[in-house]
């Protein structure tokens, strides 16, 4: 599903984002991405959706080489990747409902079945009552859940979540984890960057640990802090 070959990303002039990362993630895997603040987790994710390009190395997603992917094809790549952004990235001029719906509309699918899907997913993350509010009228955790809903609504084959529970209380976090777990069970590949030690330790899934842009651990059934 995902292949990194000696990928290096340097932010000008000389900040290391990622350095010499080799990686293979199979279809259907559930991967935790851990590492201290500034270790390159978000950089990894931004490379995956081709928000930025690597300075060196090769990235392939779903068999497509991102380096040679034509510009106009990038949107089609992104529609197959649901992404929960660390800073949410909600459209401030659209209501919550329309924010989530937009992810379906870009695929040319905005009819009543799409609207039903949006209602369902908003219900799932507990925000039905905020459907017609705007993002700046929501609490931090609520915004985060909207971002999660938008990433899920499309049932993409690859789901990426950048610290999706950072602003959520443990109970809601657990709910989201359950959701991710169930989604993964249906065959969706899930990659999740997180700082939540409890959660990683409880799930016992593959853990990739980054430090200073390099992979320092890649463990089949790891915990948050193990060596």
């Amino acid at each position, binding site marked *: 599903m995902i292949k990194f070959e000696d990928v290096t990303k340097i932010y000008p002039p000389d900040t290391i984002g990622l350095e010499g990362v080799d990686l293979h993630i199979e279809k259907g895997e559930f991967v935790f991405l851990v590492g201290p603040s500034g270790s390159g987790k978000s950089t990894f994710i931004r490379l995956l959706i081709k*928000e930025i390009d690597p300075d060196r190395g090769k990235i392939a997603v779903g068999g497509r080489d991102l380096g040679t992917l034509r510009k106009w094809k990038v*949107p089609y790549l*992104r*529609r197959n990747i649901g992404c929960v952004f660390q800073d949410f990235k909600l*459209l401030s001029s*659209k209501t919550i409902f329309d924010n989530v719906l937009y*992810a379906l*509309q*870009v695929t040319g699918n905005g009819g009543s079945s799409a609207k039903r899907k949006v209602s369902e997913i908003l219900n799932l993350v507990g925000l039905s009552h905020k459907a017609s509010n705007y993002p700046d009228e929501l609490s931090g955790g609520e915004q985060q859940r909207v971002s999660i809903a938008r990433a899920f609504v499309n049932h993409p084959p690859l789901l990426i979540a950048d610290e999706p529970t950072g602003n959520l209380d443990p109970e809601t976090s657990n709910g989201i984890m359950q959701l991710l777990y169930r989604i993964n069970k249906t065959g969706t590949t899930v990659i999740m960057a997180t700082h939540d030690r409890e959660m990683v330790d409880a799930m016992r899934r593959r853990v990739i640990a980054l430090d200073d842009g390099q992979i320092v651990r890649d463990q089949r059934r790891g915990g948050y802090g193990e060596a």
Partner: protein
Amino acid sequence: MGKLKFFLGEALRSLRRNYFMTIAALVTVFLSMAVLGAVMVFVYNIEAVLKDVEQKVEISVFLKDSVTAEQIETLQAEIVGWEEVKESQFVSKDEALQRLKEDMGEGADVVEDLGRNPLPASFEISLNDPEEVGGIASRLEGREYIDEVSYGQEIAERIFQVTSVIRNILVVFLVMLGGVSILLISNTIRLSIYARRKEVEIMKLVGATNWFIRWPFVIEGIVVGTVGAAAALAVVQLGTDFVVERIRENLIFLSVPFDAISLVQLAIVLLGVGALIGATGSGLGLRRFLNV
């Protein structure tokens, strides 16, 4: 068609939600277009006045006293037959004297004292295109019963010089003003897009194609451009009516054809330019933010 409806809906929703920027853009379109429209009306009217002035350039063909009524008639028929000629009027010796008296006013008694009439009969010829005056004059010169052909060469050339300079200045000014309007409007549109660049970035990141993002912006631009231009059109029209009314009242003796430019012409230009700048300004202004 579902898509068109979607894009239209997006555009209108965005115009409403970002009303502050909508108003700013509308104000800019309205003001630029109003100035452009007013100056267009002004230039077109001045142009009409210039045409009017140029029409004053006529050829006077002075006839020898020996000319017969028959010869006069033949000549008149020939001149009127030329397609360059708009009108040809015969002025008899008596009429010429009468005019001189009227023209002189204070000094009229000088003429009264004359025993005989020294003035020649003449044709006064006005042309469709006054600039051909030289050619027509030389065509007439030297005929046997014609004494002299005169068209006030020096005056005529001066008039044409003046009108052509004024014309050039006005046209250059109008074109420049058009350019200024376009720049001002697209500038404002770019600024309003700039304020939304984060939104555009997000749209790209969730999988929207460039045109999917662009269409609503283009429609927004067309709406703002057209509405602003329509408002400008209304104001220019009312303003022109008001000014013309006052000029007519105060300067009844002026013969300016104040309908030199029609509402339809003005509307086509303003609305067309407004919609076009709105659309292209939005479409192009987006480009640099779509590279995500």
